[in-house]
Each structure stands twice: as structure tokens, then as C-alpha cells.
């Protein structure tokens, strides 16, 4: 039985034992049908041309984790931001860990998806938002919709400015061989609400873990969501991350994606504009080596006038690593005075590293400003020599130039602890200690 068949069979077995709202049950059964018909994407599909899934979907995964392992604070300490006070929603092998978490229902909901799905007081919110932002034709998203029962549920009411960042962290311990996880997050920021969120998936063992996560984010009028994805997982871990953001007037959604780890990462990041004067920001630093593959697919759908989108992705590829950047910007006829900016800059550190970069602009309005550019290059040899004549050894000189290259993406990070962590991760990845933060 291949993975697709196994997943469909597992879904059938699962539905008899769980209770969903009838509306949700309907969405799930339609989603599994989509997945059954389409299966996993193949390289023949334009959107997956440079991102082979062969190995990933040929592994026999455990779909329902048998048991979770207890983790101590020491086990998880390196992966949780602790130099800043935060809310934490922590899962271990797909199961919520009350011990490691700090949730709240005071003046807002920072809690679990499973609770939101099962408790009647959340019924209205769930029916209003669940699976309404997604691309239901996307196979991975459909698969997650069919299975996803756990994750973060965050609802920030009108005008609430959340002081503490919220961390969503999924650990896997290896207690289940070849684990497949399908977390589902729902984030709703009501009018003028403001929230900062950090998401991380971390495997603590050498067994294969395949995470297929879907996050839906709704930013209502004037709301601000500042989202950080720290992708520095174990080399045996793989991630497909689909994030769908629906924005209302004057809202600002900002997503930073830091991709340093994992064997395979595919990010689908979609922004949909439902009104005027919206800002969407997406920034990324990818720093990979060996046989790692990181794929960023972004989509900004400008459907109304006077909005802005700003995207800036930097990639540094060493060894035989592969990078993909596909930035799609759609500007509907109605969306006059749109200002869309897109930049993708890449450095190939070795002859065997590859980057496939493609801007994809579909513009139907005539009074718009769309700028895009992509570059692929090597580190400047003259700059390296210059640094070396100042006593900086080649390895450190390369690291310094790499830092410098990635630096302006970090400038927009608003949580100092996140910036420090990313700086440290970059230094560690480059094997240097430069003794200062950019």
C-alpha cells in the first residue's frame, strides 16, 4: 500500500471514532476526496517542477502517534525562546503538553485547536473561519484539512494589543518511527488587534518526521499580525508549510521565514486582500548546505486599490543544496494604485548548489507600481581579499559577507530575542563566532 492509499484508509478508520461538528465533518470528507483524486503533486506540475517529492512520499509514516514521550524542560530549552516572557502552545508528538505550555483565556484565547473544534462556545468562530482561507484544491492542504485536529487556536479580540509574543512549538521525540504530523492553526485578529507569533517544528531524534502544517490567519480592519517561522529542524525532518492570510482594510500582516534546517522544506505563503489600503510583508533568509532543499512559493492577491506588498527573500546555498523561489503577484483590474515590491537575491557558495527563481506577475490594472528583481551570484572575491588583508581569516570573512548579505531582512524583526536567536543560528550554521550582532 503506498502512502496515499494508506492515508485514505486511515482517514476512513478515524472518522468512525471522532466527533466533529457536522459542518466540519463535511469539509473533511470533501477534503479527503480531493486528496484521493489528486494524490501527491508530481514534478510534471509547474508548481512542483523543481521540488521532487519522491523520497518524501515513499516512506511509510505513522499517521496516528501511539504515545507521546514526556519531555523535561532541559530537553526543550534550546528550542524555546526563554529570554523573553511569552505564551507557549507546545505539542509533543502531536499531543498537547500542558506541562510545557502557557496558554490563556483572559481577555483573549490562546489555546488549542482541539478545544476550539469540540467546545460549543467556539462553534461560531470555527464555522466562520475554519478552512475558508485555504486553497481547497491543494493536495497537501486538503490532506491536512482531512486529518488536522490539533494545533494552535488564537483569537485576539478588538483593540487588544497582546504584550507577550506567542510561541507555537511542535516537538517530535522519535517514540513513533517515521512520524507524520498534520498540525492545524487558526489565528483570528479582530479589528485593531495586534499580536506577535513564533512558530517552530523541532524533531529531537534521528527518525524521519514529515510535518504537513496548515495555518489560516485572518487580520480584520486595522489589525497587525507579526509572524515568525523558525525553520531549523533536524536533518531527517521534512516540512510542508501552507499559510493562508486573509486581510481586511488597513491591516498589516508580516511573515518572516528563516529556513536553516531540515532536509526538505516547502513553504506556500498566500496573502488575499479583501479590501483597500492593506499591507502585506514577507521576508526570508534561507541558509542551507548538503542536500537540503528549501522551496518558497509566495502569492499576493491584490484585489482592491491602494494596497502594498513587500517581499524580500535572501538565499545562501552551499554544498549540493537546492533552492526554489516562486513569487506570484496578482493585481486585479480593480486594484489600482497597487504598490508591489519583490526582491529575491541568492548566493551560490559552491558549484553544485542550485537556485531556481521565478517572479510571476499577473497584472490586470494599469495604474500600478510593481517592481521585482532577482539576482544570483557568488561572494565577491575582492571583498574577501579586502577582509583578509585586515586579518580576518577566509572562513570568518565569508561569514561576515554572508551576514552582511542577509542583514537587511533582519532589520524588520521586531522581537529582539528573535533577532538574537537568528543571529546565533546563522553564526552556528556558518561555524563562526563573530562576537557582534548585526
Amino acid at each position, binding site marked *: 500500500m503506498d502512502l496515499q492509499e494508506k492515508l485514505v484508509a486511515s482517514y476512513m478508520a478515524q472518522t468512525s471514532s471522532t466527533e466533529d461538528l457536522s459542518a466540519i465533518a463535511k469539509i473533511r470528507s470533501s477534503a479527503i476526496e480531493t486528496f484521493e483524486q489528486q494524490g501527491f503533486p508530481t514534478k510534471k506540475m509547474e508548481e512542483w517542477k523543481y521540488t521532487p517529492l519522491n523520497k518524501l512520499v515513499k516512506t511509510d509514516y505513522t499517521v496516528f502517534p501511539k504515545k507521546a514521550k514526556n519531555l523535561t524542560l532541559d530537553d526543550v530549552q534550546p528550542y524555546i525562546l526563554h529570554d523573553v516572557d511569552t505564551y507557549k502552545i507546545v505539542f509533543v508528538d502531536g499531543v498537547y503538553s500542558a506541562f510545557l505550555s502557557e496558554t490563556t483565556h483572559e481577555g483573549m484565547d490562546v489555546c488549542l485547536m482541539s478545544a476550539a473544534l469540540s467546545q460549543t462556545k467556539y462553534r461560531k468562530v470555527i464555522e466562520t473561519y475554519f478552512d475558508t482561507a485555504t486553497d481547497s484544491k491543494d493536495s497537501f492542504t486538503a490532506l491536512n484539512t482531512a486529518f488536522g485536529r490539533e494545533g494552535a487556536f488564537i483569537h485576539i479580540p478588538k483593540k487588544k494589543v497582546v504584550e507577550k509574543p506567542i510561541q507555537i512549538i511542535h516537538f517530535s521525540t522519535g517514540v513513533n518511527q517515521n512520524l507524520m504530523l498534520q498540525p492545524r492553526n487558526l489565528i483570528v485578529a479582530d479589528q485593531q488587534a495586534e499580536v506577535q507569533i513564533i512558530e517552530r517544528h523541532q524533531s529531537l531524534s534521528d527518525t524521519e518526521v514529515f510535518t504537513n502544517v496548515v495555518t489560516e490567519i485572518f487580520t480584520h480592519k486595522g489589525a497587525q499580525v507579526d509572524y515568525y517561522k523558525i525553520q531549523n529542524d533536524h536533518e531527517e525532518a521534512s516540512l510542508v508549510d501552507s499559510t493562508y492570510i486573509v486581510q481586511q482594510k488597513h491591516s498589516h500582516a508580516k511573515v518572516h521565514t528563516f529556513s536553516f534546517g531540515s532536509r526538505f522544506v516547502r513553504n506556500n505563503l498566500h496573502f488575499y486582500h479583501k479590501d483597500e489600503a492593506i499591507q502585506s510583508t514577507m521576508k526570508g533568509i534561507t541558509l542551507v548546505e548538503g542536500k537540503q532543499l528549501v522551496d518558497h512559493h509566495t502569492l499576493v492577491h491584490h484585489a482592491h486599490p491602494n494596497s502594498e506588498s513587500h517581499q524580500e527573500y535572501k538565499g545562501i546555498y552551499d554544498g549540493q543544496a537546492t533552492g526554489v523561489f516562486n513569487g506570484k503577484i496578482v493585481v486585479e483590474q480593480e486594484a489600482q494604485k497597487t504598490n508591489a515590491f519583490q526582491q529575491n537575491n541568492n548566493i551560490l557558495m559552491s558549484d553544485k548548489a542550485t537556485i531556481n527563481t521565478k517572479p510571476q506577475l499577473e497584472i490586470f490594472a494599469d495604474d500600478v507600481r510593481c517592481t521585482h528583481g532577482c539576482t544570483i551570484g557568488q561572494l565577491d572575491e575582492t571583498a574577501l*581579499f579586502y577582509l*583578509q588583508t585586515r586579518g580576518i581569516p577566509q572562513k570568518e570573512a565569508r561569514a561576515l559577507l554572508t*551576514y552582511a548579505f542577509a542583514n537587511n531582512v533582519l532589520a524588520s524583526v521586531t522581537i529582539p530575542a528573535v533577532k538574537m536567536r537568528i543571529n546565533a543560528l546563522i553564526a552556528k550554521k556558518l561555524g563562526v563566532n563573530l562576537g557582534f550582532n548585526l
Partner: protein
Amino acid sequence: MLSIDNLHAQVEGKGILKGINLDVKPGEVHAIMGPNGSGKSTLSTVIAGHEDYEVTDGTLLFQGSDISDLSADERAHLGVFLSFQYPVEIPGVTVTNFIKTAINETRKGQGLEEMPANVMLKKIKEKAKLLSIDTQFLSRSLNEGFSGGEKKRNEIFQLAMLEPKLAILDETDSGLDIDALRVVANGVNTLRSKDNAIIVITHYQRLLDYIVPDFVHVLHEGKIVKSGGKELAHELEEKGYDWIKQAT
């Protein structure tokens, strides 16, 4: 300090230096002059240790040891400094962070502890003052958007911070107006001592009015064809390089 004997060097298979002999002792200032394409910049690049430049014959000794197999950073740790004709712009790294990294990596290479932050800060302030550098300038990205004068002043600031034994100034006067030239030359002169040496590479005599050399060498087609005292520079200025070309 620097002892060059019959030095031949090539880049991309093309021979540029064809038998250079040069002996520089502590406390001395040597000027190397010559027409465009004579090999002046190549000589400085070879001494500093660019890996694309290959020494094919002869010896390159620094303080008695052969340095021809050392990398540029290893030579810097021994005390060789090259001020670039065209300093490289590095957006995203501030002047301060750059100089801190350079000093501490150099100290590490010399087997010394890192310089304490307060000592570093004091030194930065002192040397910035020497070169009339505004402190705001120090938090700008290295050489990015700097004027020609600012770039050269920044080179000499790094020289002052790193305190090398041998400083090679490659066309430091190019792109400088007379005021900037004075500031830069004054900075260099303050750093002169009986223990260190300076090689000034220049096309024109102008800079040598301010940094007065003990010896002047004329380079032509990869060889030193004439050496003399500071008066040789004036003679060149008067008669032009054709005079040298004809004489050889």
C-alpha cells in the same frame, strides 16, 4: 623587514613582475612610482598575499621568513597592511563592527586575548580624532556611499587601528582633494616610527610632498629600473615617465 629578491609573479598565466629587488628596513619610507601598467599595484597585491597572484621565482621575506605561502590574513597577523586603491563597499557591516572584528581576529591570529570593549572604544575614538572622522561615520556601512576622500580616510583609520609593521599605501592620493590629502598624509606621518615601515605606491609626486620618502624606486615593465632619494620623484615630475622609458 621586507626583503624581496628577484621576485617574479604572474596572474592568470601572465607574467607581471619580472625580477623585483627591494629591501625595506624598519623606520624607512619607500616610494614606488611608475607609469600605468608598470606592475605597481601587482607588487602590492603580491606582498599582501592575493591567492590569484602566483610567485613563480625569487623570494619574498618578511622579518626573515618566507611568506609567499601564507594567506593574506596570516600575513596581516604578522603585520602586513595594504591600503586599497579602491576600498570595497560592504553594505550591512558598520565601520565599527568591521574594525572590531579585524582587531580581534588579528589578535586571535597572534595568540592574544580579545581587546576589552572599553579599550577598543577608547582607541577607536582616539584614532577617529586623529583623522578628523566624525563618530557618526563609524556607524555607517563600510565604504557604502562614501566619497573618495572618506574611503581613503577610512583606510588610514584602519591602518591606525591595526598598527601594522609594514603599511603599503596603494595610490592613496587618487581621488583626494588637497585638504583630504593633507589629513590622510598627516595621519600616516603620525604613525611613522623607527619600528615600522611604509611603502607608498603612487603615480604622482604630489603625495610625496606630504609623506616624504627616504627612497624612491621607479618601476617599469615589472622591474625596478631606477632607485634614488626623494629628489628622484621631483626629477620624474619634471621629465615625465618617458625619460625613464627612453633611459631603459
